[in-house]
């Protein structure tokens, strides 16, 4: 187990390194610079600014400096907001983004699995058709469309829920619903088909032949097996939710990390772009690692440690 974790950790480091490198060079391919503005600055001032942020150095030197900042976990000050460091932006934005993300994942998982299980149990019945209609709609409507629709109907027309910001539980409902609907729909469809398959398995018949209650047969014997495919795609869904937070945070004016990421790109704020990218990718890679471990725990047949001792 320890060997496996160590190996996976090394892979994670390599992955993040590759992402960071690609981001750095892609960012430099972008036309413009942080100091390209409508008002023209004095040329000497411009040169001084560039020297201050090492932007006058050759690209390779900048790259090395940047790698150093990753290793030391210190991305320096933001160019556009000189009073802030990238680290302070991250530590302010991350808790809010994390809150949005965790609630979204929980909502999507619980409602998706429940919808899928009920649809499978009432296979080809009314509940099944309703659940699958919701699921198809959920998959087809992009979260930014859903978000604006929700704001228009629930916040503007009906005035039930607040339209934006992130200050109370009521404020959280719309962003979470907008972000969770897509993943929920995917989970619901997958749970349904996997549950239908599991229910025909011999061990379900064995469980019924033991005289167990229907609840026990479904939850203890069927659901655990039916959730395997759901766990498998959880990694991909997490990535989707994570990128979804950029858009949703922007639409609902939520002061999370996504806002700094998007603004950083718009303003060519190099340290902010690099810092947020590295942080996001490291976080996602780590989540995928957790999903793999969870898979091994759910299914005893999957050996995380192939060779060597246990």
């Amino acid at each position, binding site marked *: 187990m320890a060997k496996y974790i160590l190996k996976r950790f090394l892979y994670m480091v390599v992955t993040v390194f590759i992402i960071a490198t690609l981001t750095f060079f892609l960012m430099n391919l972008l036309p413009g610079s942080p100091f390209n503005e409508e008002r023209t600055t004095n040329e000497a001032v411009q040169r001084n600014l560039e020297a201050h942020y090492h932007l006058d150095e050759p690209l390779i030197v900048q790259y090395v400096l940047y790698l150093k900042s990753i290793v030391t976990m210190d991305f320096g000050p933001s160019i556009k907001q000189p009073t802030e460091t990238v680290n302070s932006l991250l530590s302010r934005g991350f808790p809010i983004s994390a809150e949005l993300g965790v609630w979204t994942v929980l909502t999507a998982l619980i409602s998706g699995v429940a919808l899928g299980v009920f649809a499978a149990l009432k296979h080809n019945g009314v509940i099944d058709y309703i659940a699958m209609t919701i699921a198809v709609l959920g998959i087809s409507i992009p979260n930014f469309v859903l978000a604006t629709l929700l704001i228009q109907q629930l916040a503007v027309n009906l005035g039930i829920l607040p339209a934006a910001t992130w200050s109370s539980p009521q404020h959280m409902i719309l962003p979470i619903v907008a972000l969770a609907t897509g993943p929920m729909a995917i989970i619901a469809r997958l749970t349904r088909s996997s549950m239908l398959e599991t229910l025909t398995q011999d061990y379900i018949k064995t469980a019924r032949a033991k*005289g167990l*209650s229907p609840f026990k047969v479904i939850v203890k014997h069927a659901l655990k097996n039916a959730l395997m495919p759901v766990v498998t795609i959880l990694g991909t869904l997490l990535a989707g939710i994570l990128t979804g937070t950029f858009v949703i945070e922007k639409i609902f004016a939520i002061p999370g990390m996504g806002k700094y990421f998007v603004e950083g790109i718009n303003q060519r704020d190099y340290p902010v772009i690099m810092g947020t990218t590295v942080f996001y990718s490291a976080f996602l890679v780590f989540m995928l690692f957790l999903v793999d471990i969870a898979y091994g725990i759910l299914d005893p047949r999957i050996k995380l440690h192939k060779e060597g001792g246990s």
Partner: protein
Amino acid sequence: MEKLLDIRDLHVSFTTFGGEVQAVRGVNLELYRGETLAIVGESGCGKSVTANSIMRLIPSPPGKIKEGAILFKGVDMTQLPDKEVRKIRGVDISMIFQDPMTALNPTLTIGDQLTEGLRQHRSISKREANDQAVDMLNLVGIPNPVERLKQYPHEFSGGMRQRIVIAMALICEPELLIADEPTTALDVTIQAQILQLFQKIQKQTRVSIILITHDLGVVAKIADRIAVMYAGKVIETGTRKEIFYTPQHPYTRGLLQSVPRLDQKGEKLIPIDGTPPDLFSPPAGCPFTARCPMAMEVCSKIYPFHSELSQTHEVNCWLQDERAKKFMASTF
């Protein structure tokens, strides 16, 4: 002898897109305490459906018990509410399924699967349940039972898994054990071991066994009585001796001729030509008519009458009619 199970005129159908499949069409069977009854017949003849009906394990829909009664110790299983059926399942009647590789849940430990039935039906502690599980694994011959309880199904071989399935079925000390092709998925040496295990268990617990199989070798070894099924009906029943030495129905004879025998070296096996009838619209007469080497005109029109050759030997065939017998005697 006391009758444990009495199936009377059982009809089971499945509704499909193509229409109604009449899988079981009026089965009558009796089972006495402590005996082993084998139900034999080729695939799709309704043996498994009959067995599953006893425990009410027919998936419904599409399946449905349309007519008849299944009296277990005098109580009609077909009329009981689901909750009462669950009290009988696993406690009074247990079932063993064909494929031990898929009959166990891959994500739960053996110990968990062995004890959950016990804990559902009897109010006992986890420790007591575990102790009983260990005893049971000892009975079915699994070494190191205490450690084995913590393992998962994939850590066992096929034969070992079937032993576990048997232990699971027997843990609540049922009076009736239904084994649906328990040796089909195993290789021959393991088959013999499992059959020996059945005999040993029956000696120790006096459990009645219904054995469903298409393997006549298995039947010859452990069955007391045999019921031959064809196209959803029981066509011949008798003791093991009666069926193997004086089979009356041409189908039973055909089955026996299609099995290789050690004492008839070099002789060709005689298969039964053709296939069983379509159960969407079963024929009015004897369903075996089309494949029967001795079919007469009446066979295809009217279902043969029921005749009792001895107290135990019963058959449904027109050849039992006096006129047919006279004709056969005069021509052959």
